[in-house]
Structures are given as structure tokens and as C-alpha cells.
């Protein structure tokens, strides 16, 4: 297997991977529910911090755990003793809370699947902005531009009564190879600010259906995939 020993950045700098790994992406979670929406930021908190959006409807935010994020430090920045070269950004979705009601005549799928209707609504209304060093946008595009490349390709048998059909959605391909790779990788230095804004220019995800459970919401987990320099013990 080929060993990468050097990476040349767009500005000509050459990085020599030393204590680098490609096996551990940096990831962060936000949660979205129906109704008025204010901008939520992935990577704005560190492990143990409050998950953005998790307080809506419940009053108190949920403390993050390792399933939500592996960002350490104070949040909204890469720790001083880490570096990151981002080759791809991927966003996956889960429905949490309850299964919800019949949505526009279509039965909701079982948890934690996301219905195709909700996935399309999220893709239609969400715009993502990756910011590094809080100065400039490094990319801006609607949600679907950053396919999950994770998920389930389910197989169902025939429903017993023939009328319980439902349709699940996924943010893009479920195939690992289906991620969108940046033609020009992005470098994040230790200590640099780092967030991904989830904007909803309309002020809501129109018609998002998450049932009547106050916990009902869509959980979006964002991966920054690439080479990561971890702390040296």
C-alpha cells in the first residue's frame, strides 16, 4: 500500500505527515426541529459541551458525548496540539424522538430513519458554510452538496396489509466512495477557529415533520474527513 509522506497545499506549502492519521475524522452534531430556526453551528462546542439545537422544545440542552463530537478543548477551534487537512465534508442524518404522524399522506419510517420528505426539505432549505479562522468562508453550498457516504441500504419484505408503505431518505449515497472530495484540500492549523454554519435562509425548514414529541428532531452529524495530526502523548 502506498504511504503518503508529503502533501503539497494549494499555496505551495509542503506538509510532512509525522504523527498523522487518516483513521479518525473530526465530527460534530447539531439537532434541528420544526418551527422557527436560528443558525446552528457544528464544531462550536467540545466534548461535554451543549449540543446546539437540543434544547428546543425541551428547555434544557443535552450534554454531548463521544457519539456527538470528538472535538476537544474549548470548542469552535482546533486544539493547539492538533492539525487537520480536510479532504471531504460529509453530513449524515437521523430522526430522533418519536416516529411522527402520517406526513402528507405518506407513512413515516421507523426511527431513526429519516423520511424522504424530510430529507428533501432539509436539502432544499439548509445551506452550509465552512469557516476557518473565522475570517473567510472556505466553502458554501446546500446540504446535498456534502453527501453522507454513510447510511443504510435497507431491504424490506412485503407489508402484511399492503398499505403501510413508507420511504426512507439518505443525504446522498450510502456508499463510502460516494463522498464529495475537495479538489483542493483545506488546511486547519492548531488553534485556528473552525465552525460549520447551518443556515436556513427562509427562517425555518419548511414543513419539517417530526411529530408531536418535544424531543422530535433531526440529528445531523458532520464529518471532516482527511488527515489529522493528534496530540503526541
Amino acid at each position: 500500500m502506498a504511504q503518503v509522506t508529503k502533501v503539497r497545499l494549494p499555496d505551495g506549502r509542503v506538509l510532512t505527515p509525522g504523527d498523522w492519521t487518516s483513521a479518525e475524522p473530526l465530527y460534530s452534531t447539531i439537532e434541528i426541529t420544526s418551527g422557527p430556526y436560528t443558525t446552528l453551528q457544528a464544531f462550536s462546542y467540545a466534548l461535554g459541551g451543549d449540543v446546539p439545537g437540543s434544547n428546543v422544545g425541551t428547555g434544557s440542552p443535552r450534554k454531548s458525548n463521544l457519539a456527538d463530537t470528538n472535538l476537544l478543548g474549548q470548542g469552535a477551534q482546533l486544539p493547539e496540539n492538533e492539525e487537520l487537512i480536510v479532504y471531504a465534508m460529509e453530513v449524515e442524518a437521523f430522526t430522533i424522538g418519536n416516529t411522527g404522524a402520517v406526513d402528507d399522506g405518506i407513512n413515516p419510517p421507523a426511527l431513526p430513519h429519516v423520511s424522504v420528505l424530510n430529507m428533501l426539505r432539509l436539502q432544499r432549505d439548509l445551506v452550509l458554510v465552512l469557516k476557518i479562522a473565522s475570517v473567510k468562508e472556505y466553502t458554501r453550498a446546500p446540504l446535498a452538496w456534502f453527501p453522507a457516504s454513510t447510511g443504510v441500504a435497507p431491504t424490506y419484505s412485503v407489508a402484511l396489509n399492503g398499505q403501510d408503505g413508507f420511504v426512507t431518505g439518505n443525504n446522498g449515497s450510502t456508499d463510502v466512495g460516494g463522498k464529495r472530495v475537495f479538489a483542493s484540500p483545506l488546511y486547519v492549523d492548531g488553534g485556528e477557529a473552525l465552525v460549520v454554519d447551518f443556515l436556513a435562509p427562509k427562517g425555518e425548514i419548511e414543513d419539517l415533520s417530526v411529530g408531536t414529541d418535544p424531543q422530535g428532531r433531526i440529528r445531523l452529524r458532520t464529518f471532516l474527513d482527511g488527515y489529522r495530526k493528534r496530540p503526541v502523548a
Partner: protein
Amino acid sequence: MAINKVQLPDGTEVVIDEWLHYPLFSTIQIGSLGGTGDSTNLRAFSYVQGMRVPSTTNVTGGTRLADARDTNMVKRGGLNYDEAFILYAITYEAFALTPNTVTPPVAAPAPVLTAENVKRLQRDLLVELIVGAQQQKPQLRSPFSFIGQSAGTKSFASTGAVGLGIAFSQGTGGSIDARNQRRLELPIYIESQQVAFMKVSSPIGTIAGLDQQVRLRWYWDGLKRRPVA
């Protein structure tokens, strides 16, 4: 591996420095009435946020003002003086604005677009990329079907009907996958301040059978030279 040089068809070498993989996107809307899609002649990438989204006659509610979901262009119909773009691929995503009306036993609530309507668009729409002022020669011209849809929802249906005798229908332009976009073997370079837009038309006139109103968000995938502060 990092790309740090791109050779253009005319031999020019572009060294990537302040360049980022930063797609440009722009939305248009096609209306329908009574099971027939509007005759279409629209220009994507021809407006900025706050201007009207190009729409045909029968879009419900008429035209609307564009917001950040619709486009990230900062200059109408071209690139700003501090930008340039190397276009590698074109793709799109599609949303229905209305449910389907005349094709039972198939159901597709908005924003789901039926497979039949995607096929109708593929049959009748023509896409042209124009680069340069008063330019009559398109840099790209092809039927809509030639351009794959790489952004969208992968969906999986259970086998039960969603209503009595009603099946669910959703269509996408090929398999949803980041690789499913027609990549240009020879990238197209759009210079600073150069006029550039995309014409989407239906040369045949109205789009027979189109029973949903459609929002098409077009993407130019490529490298963009960003403003240097």
C-alpha cells in the same frame, strides 16, 4: 493528493494558490398548469440574492426574491472582478413545488418529484452554457438527460402501497452519488468579469405531461479564485 496546477485546453497553466473547491449554484423554477409544463426559456446564474428567481409563467405565487438557498453568485450573469472559476462539472438537484396531479396511481407530495416528471424534463429540456458577452457559441450544449444528478436524496421504499392502490414515485437524474455528474475532460475557464450564465430551455415548447412545478438548483462544480483581503 493536492492539485496545484491545471492545464487548460489552450495550454495555459493555472497555478492554484488562492483557489478553493467552491461550487457556484443558481436556481430556476418551471411551472405547470393542467398537466402541462410551461414553455421554458430561463437563465440560471443570471441574478444575485434579492433579485427575482427566474421562473416561468405558471409558477404558483409568481416569482419570488432569491435568498441564500437559491444562489451564491455575487454578480449577476458573470464573475466579479476579484473572482475566476475553473469549471469541471455541471450537476443539479430538483425539488417539486407542488404535488403531482394527473398521474394516479402514483403519489408524490412536494418536494418529491415523480420519476415520470424527471423523465419528461430529460426528454424536453436543453441546457446551454454561455461564456462571454454576446457569445452565440455555447461552451456546452446538451439535452438535460446528459447531465447527471449528483446531489439529492437516495431513497428506499418499502413494498407496501402508501394508499389504496397508490404507489410512491420519486425520480432522480441517475444514481445519487457525488461521482454521478458529467465531468468535463477539458475544464472551462471563466475569467474575472467575464459574462457567464446557463440557458435552460424547452425547444419543443410546452413540456407535455409535466404535472408538478419544479425547482432546479444548478451547480457549477470547480475551483474558484476567492477575493484576497
